[in-house]
């Protein structure tokens, strides 16, 4: 195995008196798609807040390409939980946001992004405002805004959490195809078991808050996934296994309800 790009070593974090992350250790290899799967409110977004330096912690260490995160020069392109498109910017100008922040002139940034619109299923919508697009298209625009930043690694926080089931399934299939072509190094946060199994090379399962890694699962299903019956059966078995782990009563939390909500926030 090559040297990992991202390593988290025994990370801990608390909001005041509220412990949110405990002893989290993870690693992501180059070109690997890793998912973090856990119940709502367990601390997944908090983990991304640490990675994007919105918050910092003294407990544990985060390294990117062997360097401490603070010296790694913002290696992540981040896609927040809601699409966070700016309603006042046309789609084309939303997708160039990261490049503009980096100091690129708007016209140059537009030229750079425009050829990608077809691939992202957004051709012809460059001059529309976000409110004029469907949910799926908005998510694709947000993802385009993320990948054009050309950062070493993507952080996707529940990118499809707000979509209806059918649109979501379509988007998962589309994202898998995109990933197969581009081989981004990516970390996906989700509470959708199917999504995690469908997209990931590896999954970290988190416990309810305070989040600990309760299991690490390698998904060695052939890609593209979910197209043939044999893979579907194996995927379903993995999904059932994961659900079993996540729903089983936690010995650390005896007395709490054995079933936990996986509903969207």
């Amino acid at each position: 195995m090559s040297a990992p790009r991202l390593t988290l070593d025994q990370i801990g974090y608390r909001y005041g008196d509220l412990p949110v992350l405990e002893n989290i250790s993870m690693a992501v290899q180059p070109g690997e798609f890793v998912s973090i799967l856990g119940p709502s409110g367990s601390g997944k977004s908090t983990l991304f807040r640490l990675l994007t330096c919105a918050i910092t912690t003294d407990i544990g260490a985060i390294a990117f390409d062997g360097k401490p995160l603070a010296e790694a020069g913002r290696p992540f392109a981040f896609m927040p939980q809601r699409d966070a498109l700016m309603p006042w910017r046309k789609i084309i100008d939303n997708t160039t946001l990261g490049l503009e922040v980096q100091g690129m002139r708007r016209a140059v940034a537009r030229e750079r992004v425009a050829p990608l619109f077809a691939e992202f299923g957004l051709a012809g919508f460059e001059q529309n405002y976000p409110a004029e697009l469907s949910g799926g298209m908005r998510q694709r625009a947000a993802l385009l805004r993320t990948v054009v930043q050309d950062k070493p690694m993507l952080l996707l926080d529940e990118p499809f959490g707000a979509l209806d089931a059918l649109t979501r399934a379509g988007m998962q299939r589309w994202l898998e195809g995109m990933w197969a072509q581009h081989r981004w190094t990516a970390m996906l946060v989700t509470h959708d078991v199917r999504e995690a199994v469908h997209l990931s090379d590896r999954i970290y399962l988190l416990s309810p808050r305070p989040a600990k890694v309760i299991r690490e699962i390698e998904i060695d299903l052939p890609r593209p996934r979910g197209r043939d019956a044999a893979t579907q059966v194996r995927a379903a078995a993995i999904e059932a296994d994961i659900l079993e782990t996540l729903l089983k009563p936690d010995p650390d939390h005896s007395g709490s309800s054995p079933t936990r909500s996986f509903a969207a926030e």
Partner: protein
Amino acid sequence: MSFSQSQSGRIAVQMISHIRHALPAVLAVGSLVLIWEAYAHFSGVSPTTLPAPSRVLAQAYEYRQALLDNAIPTLRATLTGFALSLIAAFLLSIIVDFVPRLKRALFPVLIISQTLPLVAIAPLIVLWFGFGLLPKILLVALVTFFPMLVALSKGYEATEPELEQLLASMGAPRWKLFWLARLPSSLPFFFAGLRISITYAVVGAIFAEYAGAAKGLGIYMLNAKNNFRPDLVLAAVLVSAALTLCLFAAAVLAERLAMPWTRRTSTGGPIR
């Protein structure tokens, strides 16, 4: 942007729905005016106490030159005062957004300034600053500055936290965050404040003139009242109402021009 047939059709439908929307208000105002007219004619009340609306209109037409001569200084005071107030509120809102501690120090003082009764303040300001343009500008600024400052500050704070986190993750410094996210986020709040403040601004200017001026709708109303001409007072009120409505409409128009994304919201096809 193509102006297709479907688009013009949609605008026609919108206009009809606007008219339908306004109909009850128009009917209500219309019947009130009719009742007033009938009362003035048949109750035997003297026109120097309650003139009929028709008389007010006739006198407004008769004295149109005087009314116009007095409306222009009022408009000038309103616009100058409001423009200065806007600039000051905008600059201070930025400073306060970057130095929150300043905000906590300043806002209580500004709230107190809003509790001062206009009736008491207007004569004092005229006493201190004379009959010229300056006291009017000051009074207009006094009634509009704080509402605009609050609207802008609230608008900055309404920025989506996800958006701020996104920009921070891109490495945007604080001023870029302000320019790219906080300022545009404040636009709806700014324009809501603008629409209200512009009507206060006219009231402020008229109050200042009422307390002492060479020309203006305020002093015109005062003189008409002292000459037992309630019809001319009401004619001046009519002019000031028309003035206010025009300014309000200008604010709405500015809002539409500044925020084009709020107009096209239906999930339509691509725009070529």
